[in-house]
């Protein structure tokens, strides 16, 4: 199972046999891992950018990039990346230079650091921390720091407003986000990403895969909504709403620094999708694991990797789909939604999950009924009276 871990151990052992101090292989492994992660982030982010452009184009009855690279403009992102690299790097006169330069690094660094605990496949995880999920959530919250630094240091009012909105949004949505993640953690009884995936190996009622999305559907939807807000995706892209704030916090950034924000945005989308996949969609679980006839390690490594990616990219696709369909919310609506709708729902979900876990499966029926009633009540209470005038109605 631990094919990659075995490889690393053999590497250590071989070097130790030659009398080389342990720090050398450690550093070598570190460098290799970091390079692989960075390379994956860059390639995946570029793919996502191209993919988003194609998806948006097809939703909007057009083609999207078609020229660069031949087949459906696959090299468009690469060309854009080169263009951004070659662009002049501007720092506004009134900017706080140190903070201005530091901000994209903080954003990018925080995003990259979150990749440490993504369980790609059985045994393929950079470091399976026992507080894995908590680590991911806490490190992702650093992104907001970078956004605020960028917004403030630009000495631009639009950027400052974007940063203010971003701070408000992040603080509000982090609460229901963490609360909704607690459901799966309570069921699995662990915060380690690897163990969370393994806890979903069974089957519900012998039919459905043992993913936590089925008992925790409410938590999943809450999490996904909050994740959209965390990534500043529509309908929650208030910090960078280009029709109001031009580009929000990164309005003054150009060239490579802007590219770092851009890459980090897409890398962050992958991170939140990976969290959702790990906690709710069974991580790398899927058919043909293990596949008879193939060595266990190969089947795990290969198919695990594929299933995990498929699930992640499906969630990313949904995010893009939403972006090109919905309109943007307003700041007060955004905050109201977090505090008045998402927070009560995630609390209710937490209480129900706890009750079911304590009372056992016999109480499922009772608790389930109460939970549904509770949810309906909350939803009705949180929803203001709709004043919808249908087309054709005359006044």
């Amino acid at each position, binding site marked *: 199972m631990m094919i990659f871990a075995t490889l690393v151990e053999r590497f250590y052992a071989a070097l130790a046999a030659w009398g080389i101090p342990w720090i050398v292989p450690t550093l070598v492994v570190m460098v290799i891992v970091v390079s692989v992660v960075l390379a994956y982030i860059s390639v995946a982010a570029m793919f996502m950018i191209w993919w988003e452009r194609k998806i948006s184009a097809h939703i909007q009855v057009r083609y999207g990039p078609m020229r660069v690279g031949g087949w459906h403009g696959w090299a468009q992102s690469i060309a854009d990346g080169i263009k951004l690299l070659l662009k002049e790097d501007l720092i506004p006169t009134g900017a706080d230079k140190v903070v201005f330069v530091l901000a994209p690094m903080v954003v990018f660094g925080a995003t990259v650091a979150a990749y440490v605990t993504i369980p790609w496949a059985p045994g393929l995880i950079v470091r399976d921390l026992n507080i894995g999920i908590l680590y991911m959530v806490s490190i992702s919250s650093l992104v907001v720091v970078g956004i605020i630094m960028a917004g403030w240091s630009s*000495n631009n009012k639009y950027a400052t407003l974007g940063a203010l909105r971003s701070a408000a949004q992040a603080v509000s949505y982090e609460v229901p986000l963490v609360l909704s993640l607690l459901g799966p953690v309570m069921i699995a009884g662990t915060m380690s990403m690897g163990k969370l995936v393994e806890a979903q190996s069974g089957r519900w009622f012998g039919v459905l895969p043992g993913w936590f999305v089925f008992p925790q559907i409410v938590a999943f939807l809450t999490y996904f909504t909050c994740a959209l807000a965390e990534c500043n995706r529509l309908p929650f892209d208030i910090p960078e709403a280009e029709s109001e704030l031009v580009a929000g916090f990164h309005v003054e950034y150009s060239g490579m620094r802007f590219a770092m924000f851009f890459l980090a945005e897409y890398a962050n989308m992958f991170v939140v999708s990976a969290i959702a996949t790990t906690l709710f969609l069974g991580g790398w679980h899927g058919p043909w694991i293990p596949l008879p006839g193939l060595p266990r390690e190969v089947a795990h490594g290969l198919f695990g990797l594929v299933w995990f990616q498929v699930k992640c990219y499906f969630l990313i696709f949904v995010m893009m789909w939403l972006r090109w*369909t919905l309109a*943007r919310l307003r*700041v007060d609506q955004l905050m109201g939604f977090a505090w008045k709708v998402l927070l009560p729902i995630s609390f209710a979900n937490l209480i129900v999950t706890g009750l079911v876990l304590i009372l056992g499966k016999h109480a499922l029926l009772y608790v389930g009924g109460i939970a549904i009633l509770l949810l309906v009540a909350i939803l009705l209470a949180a929803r203001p009276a709709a004043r919808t005038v249908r*087309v054709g109605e*005359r006044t």
Partner: protein
Amino acid sequence: MEKPIPIGTTVVMERTGETMEEMYVNMGPQHPSTHGVLRLMLKLDGEYIIDCIPYIGYLHRCHEKIGENRNYTQIIPYTDRLDYLASMSMNFGYVLAVERLMGQKIPERAEYMRVILAELQRIASHLIWLGTFGLDLGNFTIFMYCFREREMVLDLFESVTGQRLNYSFYRIGGMPMDFPDTFLTDCQAFLAWFKPRLPEYDAIMTDNILFQKRVQGVGISPPQVAVEYGLSGPMLRACGIKWDLRRNEPYSIYDRFEFDIPVFDTCDVWARYMVRRREMEESVKIVEQALAQLPPGEVMAKMPKTIKPPAGQIYSRAESPRGEIGFYIVSDGSPKPYRYKVRSPAYVNLSALPEMLKGCLVADCVAVLGSVDIVLGEVDR
């Protein structure tokens, strides 16, 4: 180099002597949502707008001064550039004014052509408005859909006039040439395609709860305020006032058609959206009826070579997609107008913007400005 003013510093404005304790945000003239070169100074308290000062004139082209130096026919191409998204309506308003001044009657067929083209133009103009309004609210997709349909209207116009944006197609005394042979079938095909598209827009905009939340109860202008400011067109009809020059002061042959005047009384951005959305349907109705009734015959009346209206003056108005387009013309009997003035609807509608914006959020500013539907070419003249 001048040191930039840090954010939030107390600034005393040189001209007005005002002290700014609140945050001022300068929106425009280069801003994606000001629909051209409009500049708004927003006085903010956090995200709330306390006051708004519009600065216009960036696109001023001395329209009226030029008008005094051209003869009556030569002015027609300049009127195209007023509201460049509804050139037909601008042409219509202008030739109507001159014909009223001269007391000129025009052939029946030309009247029908004028109405058909003006109503198609209304559809095209409202489509652009809908698309860019969606863009303002963060919905990119509706923009593409609307432009797809607008392209078809432009194709129709191209087949008639040879132009896609500035048509200069109306003449004093009629129309310069007849429709091409393919126009009737093409136009009917377009209407057949267009009518089922409107429910699609509803699906992505009107019925979307996020969209409704963004536009309802925002940018309110009560009927009282609307009349005091002289708002016109959809802006006025969104205040529950059933006022449309095509119906209340029928010009051309608008009294021959069956159509509704959509009116909503919520006075907000939502009402303006709904009025324009419904108006597209009504325009389709008018075009259909006009196509069915289109009589044969001449399209140009017998006109003198040089147009010299009798000395006198007239204020003539017509209903453009944005509201009441008025032309005030003073003639001294010479081939050039002595005084030529345009009362543009967007100019007047925009003047009520500060009133509508007070107390809104910055994000609403974009929605409200979008709902006014300004075309800077017409505002600045």
